């Protein structure tokens, strides 16, 4: 089965923005078009020209431009302009490796295997989850998943109005993604809770008291 990785809360990748993320040590660039449709893309974070990270680039006219020499890649991941040779019709073979990406439950999900089915759609998670925050944790994904109660084959754990997901940027580190339903705890309260959770996991503290705060309801 293809793995869908939750890589970012959607509030970190708004219209016209570019963000580099890592998935198991692989560098991936997330970027969102700057026009009306504002489609989200996830590609290999590497310009096919000179290998520059595309996440250092910029979005112009629904294309991602490389910082190094300005090569522009349109939504189909094909190079559409080489500024040093503006009259050249760019060969179709010049393109960036594209991954599949879905927006669901306040999160961006990426399949590096290019999966088209998205099983989490049927998971019954709250329809209109709002992003809170992505927090970096210096602990293994296994530790964090265990701490917040995500089943080995589950994409998220929901604790009442609060949704939690985890992915591994690189071995030994984790990114914890926090979302909530609109009438749940305040974003600020949850953000501070996520910091306490991070500090507890990293410090090897008992997780039960931190998780109990969620059940008791978090104040702002």
């Amino acid at each position, binding site marked *: 089965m293809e793995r869908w990785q939750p890589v*970012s809360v959607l509030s*970190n990748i708004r219209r016209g*923005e*570019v*963000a*580099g*993320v*890592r998935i198991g040590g692989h560098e991936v660039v997330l970027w969102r078009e700057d026009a009306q449709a504002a489609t989200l893309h996830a590609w290999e974070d590497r310009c096919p020209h000179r290998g520059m990270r595309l*996440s*250092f*680039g*910029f979005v112009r006219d629904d294309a991602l*431009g490389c*910082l190094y020499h300005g090569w522009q890649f349109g939504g189909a991941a094909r190079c559409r302009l080489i500024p040093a040779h503006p009259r050249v019709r760019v060969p179709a073979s010049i393109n960036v490796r594209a991954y599949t990406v879905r927006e669901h439950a306040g999160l961006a999900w990426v399949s590096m295997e290019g999966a088209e089915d998205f099983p989490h759609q049927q998971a019954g998670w709250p329809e209109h989850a709002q992003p809170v*925050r*992505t927090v*970096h944790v210096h602990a293994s994904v296994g530790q964090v998943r265990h701490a917040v109660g995500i089943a080995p084959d589950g994409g998220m754990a929901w604790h009442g109005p609060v949704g939690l997901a985890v992915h591994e*940027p690189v071995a030994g*580190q984790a*990114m914890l993604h926090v979302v909530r339903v609109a009438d749940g705890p305040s*974003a*600020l309260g949850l*953000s*501070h809770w996520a*910091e306490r959770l991070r500090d507890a996991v990293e410090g090897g503290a008992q997780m039960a008291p931190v998780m109990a705060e969620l059940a008791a309801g978090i104040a702002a």
Partner: protein
Amino acid sequence: MTTGLTLYDWTPDVRCYAVRLGLSLMGVAYDTRAADMDLPTFQRPAGLRPGERPPVLVAGNVRITRPGTIMQFAARQPAVARAWLDPAHEWAILDWLDFGTVALDMLAAARDLAFGATLPVLPPMGALVAALRRMEDHMSARAMAGHDWFAAPAASIADVLPFVVFALSADLEVERDTCPALRRWAHRMRGLPGFVVMPGVPDYA
């Protein structure tokens, strides 16, 4: 034609960059005396006193060597917009300015260790990573409260030094994806009039 302000400046030094960036953002003009600290003492500008390292800002008989103090000096010039040291948020601005000064010293020391070696080495990063994490937590909370900047409704001198710390920590293998709130704030910094770069700080992104 002289500005009355002289900056002894060493281009690749991160403290000097912080000063150039702050002065440029505030629209303060100055004369530059380039001081290459890799050269022998006798090849450095005569005005630099023994033991002094750039940045040094000289204005008449005022002589300032600390980036945080230079930021305050510039922000208090009559021609500079009050927002850079907004009286309504002065204590928050000064608090983060001091935080930024210490973090900038940590960045400078870590970069000197990393780049001063024959082979690139990664120095102990604990204190710098802790400072970046505090900045990330702070800017996450600020964003949720609807604020774009570190300490005031507009950009202030509190934003300048933390920007340099975040931007150049990339040289020390601090990955951008660990600090999403700082990435979004740094992007706003780049859009400010007068923003300038140094090697290691890309023009975009």
